[in-house]
């Protein structure tokens, strides 16, 4: 990468860091305010079991949000994350249940098929120049259909692999701290988010993610192999969706081929609430995780308060609009 593109990226990033810090602070304040409100308004909200429940409910959406964050900062979008997750879960089921292979191979299968499918999206976008929205919309449907065909419209159960449900449901923490049973799914979420933040901020790949998102043409002119890095970014997103596939399959002890559609919008919402700009070039992993927690705290709190479900959906919609509005205001003034 030449000096010009690097300077461009680093200027964009330092501005991004300023604004994103503010944005994260806002998102964090919203999260704290929601938790505070529900603690007062909803009896039984502030208990250990419920907080663990919220953490667990965030795992799938949070991991998908991390995948979306890479892609969206790079100036793209991935509508396929939900059904890609399901496809990976189904492939894992095929390897473990239908073929009777040992568990590590099933885990590898989910990750490999995730990365491969992501790479296919990347190829379509980079080489065939199909806009990301369309390419991943196509992949969303393609993977949904494939998951149903491969699973023959039936869920695949993991009853022959008893340890499989431990991936998400067992609690490693409780071995060290017996009273605090945080399920592994939550640990996976935090591990994925931490690793993703390191990759985004400290690696060459992370630099190129920002460079592509802030000015793709400048990056190309300075000799960056834009096509190659795009494919890598979508493949990385796919790999992370594979992790989400393992979490959901483990939690449900089954690969449910009909699930997944709709999850992409929740993941994109978490990403956007967390301050990642849909026009690319700006965003943080911490923001996305906070965004995912805002969504699950909101759903959980409104449910415990007994708010009618129709209104829960309305409130979630309002929160998304307000979050993006605040984001845009901050960007203009930042």
């Amino acid at each position: 990468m030449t000096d010009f593109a690097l300077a461009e990226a680093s200027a964009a990033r330092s501005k991004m860091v300023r604004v994103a810090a503010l944005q994260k602070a806002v998102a964090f304040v919203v999260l704290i305010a929601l938790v505070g409100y529900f603690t007062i308004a909803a009896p039984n909200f502030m208990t250990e079991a419920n907080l663990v429940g919220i953490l667990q409910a965030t795992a799938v959406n949070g991991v998908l949000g991390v995948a979306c964050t890479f892609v969206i900062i790079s100036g793209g979008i991935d509508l396929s994350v939900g059904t890609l997750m399901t496809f990976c879960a189904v492939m894992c089921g095929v390897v473990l249940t239908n073929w009777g292979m040992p568990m590590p191979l099933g885990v590898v299968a989910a990750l490999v098929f995730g990365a491969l499918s992501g790479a296919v999206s990347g190829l379509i976008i980079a080489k065939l120049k199909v806009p990301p929205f369309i390419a991943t919309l196509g992949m969303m449907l393609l993977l949904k259909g494939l998951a149903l065909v491969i699973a023959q419209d039936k869920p695949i159960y993991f009853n022959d692999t008893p340890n499989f449900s431990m991936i998400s449901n067992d609690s490693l923490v409780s071995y060290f701290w017996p009273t605090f049973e945080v399920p592994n799914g939550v640990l996976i979420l935090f591990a994925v988010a931490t690793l993703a933040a390191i990759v985004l901020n400290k690696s060459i790949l992370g630099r190129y993610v920002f460079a592509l998102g802030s000015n793709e043409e400048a990056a190309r002119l300075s000799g960056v192999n834009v096509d190659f890095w795009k494919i890598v970014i979508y493949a990385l997103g796919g790999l992370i969706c594979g992790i989400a596939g393992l979490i959901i399959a483990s939690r449900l002890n089954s690969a449910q081929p009909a699930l997944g559609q709709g999850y992409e919008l929740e993941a994109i919402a978490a990403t956007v609430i967390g301050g990642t700009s849909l026009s690319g070039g700006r965003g943080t992993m911490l923001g996305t995780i906070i965004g995912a927690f805002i969504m699950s705290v909101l759903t959980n709190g409104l449910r415990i308060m007994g708010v009618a479900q129709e209104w829960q959906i309305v409130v979630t919609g309002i929160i998304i609009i307000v979050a993006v509005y605040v984001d845009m205001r901050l960007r203009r003034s930042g």
Partner: protein
Amino acid sequence: MKTTYLIGALALGLSTAPGYAEDYFPVISKGFQHQFWQAVKAGAEEAAKADGVKITFEGPETEAMVDKQIDMLTAALAKKPQGIGFAALDSKAAIPLLKKAQAANIPVIAFDSGVDSDIPLATCTTDNLKAAGVAADHMAELIGDAGEVAVVVHDQTSKTGQDRRDGFVNQMKAKHPNVKIVDIQYGGGDQLKSTEITKAILQAHPGIKGMFGANEGSIIGVLNGAKEMKKKIVVIGYDSGKQQKAAIADGSEAGAITQNPVGIGKCVVDSLAKALKGEKLDKVIDTGFYWYDKSNIGDGKVAAVLYD
């Protein structure tokens, strides 16, 4: 396996071609990717083989896609079939098309939630109100006829969702006044969403004694949620499926209502064949339901209608 799929798809394609000598009945269901619809399909195909007719079986991806289903019905009518099987997602939305079928003398047999009109010659259905009432009786009995219970339903707009909810709630109110229904939530039949809903309900009402899940996706969520919260409650479900059957066998689920999906599918095709021969049909054909639990899950007549 893949080749059989391809051949199957080809055969399906051929059978829809006009000018086919055998009688052809398109069956339009409310879905295809749930186990329940697969079982209905199996029953319909079995009857088609026995009656020597050709059928196609299709349905939209989710039960909210009323428009897609209408498109399917339009396409089916355009093929000028000898009869149509139809399970309406929205019974009023389909009426103009059903009138067209009537005008063209194409007999229509409704199934599952039926159609709000007298055009269908017969409706093959489960009495969901009655069946959910039986579920309520069992729930009351198992919790000692007093205490708090909650319900997780698949959706608030479909007739099966409404009937199962109302059947359960009304029976409780009428016959078991000391049982209080503290919450009713809707999970879209999504196992994970229903899990989170169950956990929130158990969190909000720690004293809950039992929960009723109104379809397969809902009940899997209830079972998961109760397990994750480590709560021992009485769980009652609906339909079957491998996971639910296992839960009933190991006692984590007290029992469930099963419809007779294979029977529904058979009833649709058989009734169409009878209608073509000019036989008289009952307006409503009750395909029946069973309460099943650990004690009778293996009985022949119950096991025959359960699916994996």
